[in-house]
């Protein structure tokens, strides 16, 4: 489904701030894979997602989604295949537009946008039904400005927006990191539900080891731009935070360097 092949990426090349993030990163996802990604600070998790989404170009290597080489496609064209939810709840929605207007925009992802009226009554019914499934009481707030919703509500709507037009690939970039634990759990629950119901292929970056272990069918751990642990299936089910930390020290020869991940 997704093939990341031999990606190279250096930021600020040729300056004192030069940072080599990837030197030949490769990763392949099968259809229906739900992969959780964990790693220390600066491991390249978010950069990987951004390169897949086309937010930054890769210096070298290729990205293939469902057999289509998207390496040269600009971000807005790749959006046809990709649904995204960001870490910052403000980033995933247009705050000054209504809930239904945001959903209408997501509803046309990858389609030609013409001079038809953007929301019909039929659309409105569909949006209402979809929102009702979130169980957050948002179905009655179609004409509320997005900016008036709470961070958790916004992330939930963003998730809906990322999946309502079924994406080939769903990218979740620490999408619960800015939420309080209770809200984060609720958003994760919705995430699981949407991924299972739509049978989506997904990459979820998280800083929470427990979440990384509890969700998805495959877990990868990154360090310094490399994938150092990759477990799936039965083996993944047996993982614990302790065994994961031990495996990390063994693979990288260092202590796991993320206070956030260890404290949560």
């Amino acid at each position: 489904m997704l093939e990341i092949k031999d990606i190279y990426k250096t930021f600020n090349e040729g300056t004192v701030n030069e940072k080599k993030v990837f030197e030949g990163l490769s990763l392949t996802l099968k259809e229906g894979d739900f992969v959780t990604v964990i790693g220390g600070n600066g491991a390249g998790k978010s950069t990987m997602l951004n390169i897949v989404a086309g937010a930054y170009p890769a210096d070298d290597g290729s990205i293939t989604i469902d057999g289509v080489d998207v390496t040269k496609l600009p971000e807005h064209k790749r959006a046809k295949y990709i649904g995204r939810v960001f870490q910052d709840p403000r980033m995933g929605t247009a705050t000054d537009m209504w809930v239904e207007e945001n959903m209408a925009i997501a509803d046309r992802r990858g389609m030609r946008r013409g001079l038809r009226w953007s929301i019909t009554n039929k659309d409105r019914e569909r949006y209402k039904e979809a929102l009702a499934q979130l169980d957050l009481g948002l179905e009655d707030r179609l004409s509320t400005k997005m900016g008036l919703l709470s961070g958790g509500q916004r992330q939930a709507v963003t998730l809906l927006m990322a999946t309502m037009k079924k994406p080939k690939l769903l990218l979740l970039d620490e999408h619960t990191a800015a939420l309080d634990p209770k809200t984060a759990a609720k958003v994760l629950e919705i995430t699981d539900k949407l991924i299972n119901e739509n049978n989506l292929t997904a990459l979820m970056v998280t800083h929470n080891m427990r979440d990384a272990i509890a969700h998805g069918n495959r877990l990868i751990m990154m360090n310094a731009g490399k994938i150092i642990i990759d477990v799936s299936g039965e083996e993944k089910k047996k993982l614990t935070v302790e065994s994961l930390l031990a495996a990390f020290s063994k693979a990288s020869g260092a202590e796991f360097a993320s206070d956030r991940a260890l404290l949560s």
Partner: protein
Amino acid sequence: MNLILNWLGTLPGAAGQGLVWGLMAIGLYITYKILDVADLTVDGSICTGAAVCAVMVTNGVNIWIAMFCALVAGMLAGLVTGWLHTIFGIPAILAGILTQLMLWSVNLLIMSGRANVAITRLKYGDKVLITSAASDIYRTIVILAVFVTLTIAVLYWFFGTEFGSTLRATGNNLEMSRAQGINTNFAKVFGLALSNGIVALAGALLAQQQGSADINMGRGAIVIGLAAIIIGEALCPKLVTNFYLRLLCVAGGAIIYWFVFQTVVFIGLPSELLKMLSALVVACFLGVPYLKKTYFSKKKKARGGKHA
């Protein structure tokens, strides 16, 4: 008593001015409020519209064709700014300034090197839509009101369409727009062209209203447009989210601006000071919310510090 009557006598003229500038401010609203770009192209494109219209009318071209050409010329100007910004990565405000300067030369070329092209009433009075004549003022107001209403109707429809909402999303949140598959560069270029087209159309009407196109007529146009938008926002309660009502408020803001302007002139303020006054009013309105915000956020920080 006489004084009051004299003052009242200036109001219809101010309403006429206000409606033309209201149309201009509606054009500016697209970039300033919807796309979140301060587009300085308008200082040039309003004159481009006036120049195209005046030159074509004085050369015997039908007024409707002349005004249509003014609209297209304005759109081309917006296109140049849009390309400078999106293809060459020049910050929007600088791209607008560059186009504005280019337009100075272009406008002179359109007017064959003259600084002023008069649409004399004696010769062209029956060929134009509106004139500067005081006797025509009510007809002028009605015609301008129709232009403003039609423009608002078209924009209301446009921004409700699938494509129109991509412009709103682009101005609101670039990351989200791209993630949802919107070509944000195209949306910006289109918005700039649409905006400047409307501004140039306002320029074409302005040339007819004041009986000439003048190379200096666009100087400070953006400030007048911004003043109209700001007054309009103040008029319009926050609860009004209806797009056509908001645009109507902008047109109303422009009319109020010219009422105040005429009154200040009437009271006897030297006209040299008027541009200073406009700029100061806009600076105050733009500055006050910022001062409020920094003042209040400082207070919050201090309180947080105590708890920590």
